[in-house]
């Protein structure tokens, strides 16, 4: 398992731990991401998918568990040099193109922020050239460098956010709902850009979203989260063809597709957590139901699912 760039092991993130208002935002999840792959994380609002991304990049401290990046524990105390090195390797793209760029800074300075922090350019001229190069990478051009964020459309801003992340030459990018605030026609621009960049630079992505059709399109493997727990994880095609967990089934059956004929016959499967009827001594854990396909289930369900699959 050496080709795993990221390993998340039994990660827990409780807010207000120990108090009455304790929230188990992430409740013991484990997964790993291979080098060069895109791992999609889906779920509904409040399921903990964004918190997972933010905890992985140390915006939050984990309550328990580990995030290993190339074998290095991200949350362990480190020297400043090690922290800096890690900052360069892991980057993040944010959801809201309106809130993710400082409105008082020029695009030039926004993109160059990482270059300045890590001392990646030696002169003003080099800084300028590097920023223009990055702008061109994301499909913008030199005249955009001297402008302020409010002059750009949502899609353009999102591309500026991508350029900012790319400035430090990261290996791993956490994309936290990068397209959910964009119009349909613009979403494709951003998704295509992310795919191109991945091919060019061999990037590894964690793609967080609630839009399952886009996640399916961009991801190699997908994890489905429900109330802080990972309920199912499988290669993208497998997950769509053979959803096993009742929640995944319900999620998939709820997506409307741009196809009126299909829509007229679509049947929705509602999900009710009580339907599992787990007994008090039943062990509910992540089990491999098919190669690479994991489901959170009890022993009894596991047997039933395997029977249903064959």
């Amino acid at each position, binding site marked *: 398992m050496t080709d795993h760039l990221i390993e998340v092991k039994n990660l827990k993130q409780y807010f207000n731990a120990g108090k009455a208002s304790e929230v188990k935002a992430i409740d013991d999840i484990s997964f790993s991401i291979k080098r060069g792959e895109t791992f999609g994380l889906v779920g509904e609002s409040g399921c903990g998918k964004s918190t997972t991304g933010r905890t992985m990049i140390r915006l939050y401290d984990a309550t328990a568990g580990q995030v290993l990046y190339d074998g290095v524990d991200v949350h362990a105390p480190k020297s400043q040099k090690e922290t800096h090195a890690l900052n360069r390797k892991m980057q993040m793209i944010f959801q809201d193109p309106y809130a993710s760029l400082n409105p*008082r800074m020029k695009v030039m300075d926004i993109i160059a922020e990482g270059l300045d922090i890590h001392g990646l350019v030696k002169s003003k001229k080099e800084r300028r050239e590097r920023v223009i190069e990055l702008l061109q990478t994301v499909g913008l051009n030199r005249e955009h460098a001297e402008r302020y964020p409010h*002059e750009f459309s949502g899609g353009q801003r999102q591309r500026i956010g991508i350029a900012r992340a790319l400035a430090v030459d990261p290996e791993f990018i956490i994309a936290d709902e990068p397209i959910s605030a964009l119009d349909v026609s613009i979403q494709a621009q951003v998704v295509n850009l992310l795919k191109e960049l991945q091919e060019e630079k061999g990037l590894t992505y964690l793609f967080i979203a609630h839009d399952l059709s886009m996640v399916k399109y961009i991801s190699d493997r997908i994890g489905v989260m429900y109330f802080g727990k990972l309920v199912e994880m499988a290669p993208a095609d497998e997950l769509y063809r053979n959803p096993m967990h009742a929640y995944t089934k319900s999620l998939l059956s709820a997506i409307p597709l741009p196809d009126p004929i299909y829509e007229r016959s679509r049947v929705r499967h509602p999900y009710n957590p009580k339907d599992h009827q787990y007994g008090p001594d039943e062990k509910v854990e992540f089990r491999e139901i098919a190669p690479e396909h994991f489901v959170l289930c009890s022993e009894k369900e596991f047997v039933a699912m395997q029977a249903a699959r064959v």
Partner: protein
Amino acid sequence: MRNEFEHEELPQEDFERITIDSDQAERIEKPSLSFWQDAWLRLRKNKAAIVSMVVLVLLIIMALIGPYLNGHAGDTQNLRHANLPPKVPGIENMGIMDGVGNLAGKKVDLYEMKKVDEYYWFGTDGLGRDLFTRLWEGTQISLFIAFVAAAIDMVVGVAYGGISGYFGGRTDDIMQRVVEILIGIPTLIVVILMIMIMDPGITAIIIAISITGWIGMSRIVRAQTLKYKSQEFVLASRTLGSKDGKIITKHLLPNMLGIIIINTMFTIPNAIFFEAFLSFIGIGLQPPAASLGTLINDGFKVMEHQPYVLLFPALVISILMIAFNLIGDGLRDALDPKMKD
């Protein structure tokens, strides 16, 4: 119903396919404007604010040069010249400011009666001091007190609120309890106690005004810091590896500057008013120093017989208050991010 669906013949070359340069689609038509340029354009359209700014600049200039304009010193007492009404060369022939005042119910030219050849533009007080000079000296001191107090409020308030909001947690808890205690004590009592301990004077008044004045600013700054520190552009900066100092100076402060300026603009007139109030009730500046408050106090005592003593400082303080408030309003409209896009 909709249109004619019989279509006119058009020149065939109109239907030639063309390729659009994809750069064209990314072009931004609007000229590039920074937030401050944009705000200035907005502010410029606000006539009341612009007029107020001009008036304010004139008043500040007068406060600086006014005391030296007519050759009288503000503290020269000349009992022979006491209680003279205003007299201005040129205007005196129009029936106002001609040196005519009430004496035992009769209108008399007091300058002629007292054989005074000099002109006292705004008249003199009971000790024969030139009120014109004293007015501008007073304005100078009032403005000085207000600016210094507002600056202290701003610095302390921004630092306190910023630290409290940015570091949060226990720091925030403790700092906010302190503020709550300070707020609980009636300001006026603190101020009176302060002044009784210290020698009355400019320093005492500035300290008195500042001692609780910064709380409002600190609360605003704390709320803004809380709002901005969880914004995605700050998170992005943190993932890039920025240190706290950089985040505060590059990301938080520039975004809060607008609201800090607006708030300061409303602090200044409050400070002027508070200083005037303290001086008016007699615990502010002590004679012979003049401020707008002491001048109004003096004028108030002789309001019935020599209304001009009260009139001019009252006018100046009113104009100052109105001007600062209108500028503050204008700035709020110009800088308020909610008006944007």
